[in-house]
């Protein structure tokens, strides 16, 4: 009985291996059916098994940059990049925008070692600065219409963060064509390259198309997002009192409007903020303090909404 079990186990392990190879074998089987071969030969499975074992023992293949492949044409990639985004790009400027300073320095050093003098050491430092300014300016112009300065700054920080611009750069296909020394490419490099691309758009055509570019790629990321979820004041109540003081309202009265399930895990309190018997904002939370802060956030939103828009 025991002997039988052992054998069963061996069988099982055999199947486990063969499942992995099944795909290979079946594809071959299809091939042989066409040639009217009768069976899969006895040597196929063990050979494939050994090959698989060798492959596995070597470990995973190291990642290689796409530019090291045989099928790689940098000129064609740059051309396609420009066409993909639908903007006019100056070829030389685009090349410069994608060249990081470290890469350019290394190239220059290598050339010097060989005894060749490189005429120009071009890199994208200048373009990065310029692009960042364009991005910030466009976002600020867009959000100043509807929101006060604090919120505009919060949105600016969110949209120009390294992760956001890096993911944008990756999303438009900079990862493979950016010229850097490091691999895999860092997020910072990608975000810098994206900024440089914005500057390139401006230099290649005009500032209107650069603004359009920022609107289409950076500002579009705000689609479906609430500004008040991005802006996160540390102490909303304090912020509200300062905001109201500027307007000349000094007396804010928080009142407990409702409470439910007190002293339980599902406790819920509703606090309203009043001034002169007028409701400024209402909010709820698991304790009174949190409810007060939520109410303050609500009040701030209401004040912003009622503010006359500056154009």
């Amino acid at each position, binding site marked *: 009985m025991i002997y039988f079990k052992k054998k069963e186990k061996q069988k099982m392990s055999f199947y486990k291996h063969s499942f992995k190879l099944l795909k290979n074998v079946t594809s071959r089987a299809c091939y042989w059916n066409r040639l009217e071969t009768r069976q899969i030969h006895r040597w196929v499975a063990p050979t494939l098994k050994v090959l698989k074992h060798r492959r596995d023992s070597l470990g995973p293949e190291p990642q290689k940059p796409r530019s090291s492949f045989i099928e790689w044409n940098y000129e064609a990639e740059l051309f396609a990049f420009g066409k993909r985004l639908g903007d006019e790009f100056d070829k030389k400027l685009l090349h410069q925008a994608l060249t990081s300073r470290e890469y350019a320095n290394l190239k220059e050093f290598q050339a010097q070692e060989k005894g060749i003098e490189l005429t120009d050491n071009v890199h994208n430092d200048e373009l990065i600065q310029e692009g960042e300014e364009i991005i910030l300016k466009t976002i600020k112009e867009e959000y100043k219409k509807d929101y006060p300065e604090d919120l505009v700054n919060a949105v600016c920080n969110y949209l120009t963060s390294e992760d956001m611009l890096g993911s944008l750069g990756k999303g438009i296909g900079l990862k493979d064509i950016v010229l850097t020394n490091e691999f895999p490419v860092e997020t910072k490099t990608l975000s810098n390259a994206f900024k440089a691309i914005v500057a390139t758009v401006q230099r290649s055509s005009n500032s209107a198309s650069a603004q359009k570019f920022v609107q289409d790629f950076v*500002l*579009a990321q705000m689609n479906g997002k609430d500004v008040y979820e991005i802006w996160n004041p540390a102490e909303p109540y304090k912020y509200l009192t300062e905001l109201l003081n500027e307007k000349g309202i000094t007396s804010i009265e928080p009142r407990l409007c409702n409470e439910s399930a007190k002293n339980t895990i599902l406790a819920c309190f509703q606090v309203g903020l009043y001034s002169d018997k007028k409701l400024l904002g209402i909010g709820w939370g698991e304790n009174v303090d949190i409810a007060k802060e939520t109410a303050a956030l609500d009040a701030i939103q209401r004040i912003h909404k009622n503010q006359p828009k500056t154009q």
Partner: protein
Amino acid sequence: MSNSHLFLKPGFINVPLQNGVGRYVSQLQRVVLKFCKNNGSSRGMREFIESGLVNFAKENPGVVVYLKPRRHRSAVIKAEYLNGDEQWMSCRNSTQEEISKWLNLLVCQSKNHTGTRIRKLWHTDHPSIQGPWTPFTFRDPKLNLATFPNEELAKPKDSDVSNHERLIELFKKQKLGDLENRRGE
């Protein structure tokens, strides 16, 4: 969902980086057409390269097309997307039309969708616009003016007629019915 879909990776419909909100960027980055110059299984691919490839490249200038001839190996399309996905597609014995149709699909889709099961045909990041529910969300506004203690509100909401009272009621109705019947006679 049938059994054959059990091991597919489930996913939702999504768009990378709000593509199309501003401008639309085709998500196919580059495509490598691998083929053999004299093997019969690559015949369709060779025909496509001779007659259809230039048009394809003109229509899609944002896609880099590489040709990779390899001796005695079957035809293959390898597509690379902007999100880093790669899609390998065997075109062994495919005709020219088949290849151009597959390429059209690759241009239109945003990533490698093979092996994913779409859980729903729609998706939203904001399933609720009302926000979280609280005990005060749908409260009756009548309660705002109520003064407590209030006998009306203190009563249980369902009617508290006991079975005993219900029986008496039925008995009375029956009696009335009997009286009316007698009058009818």
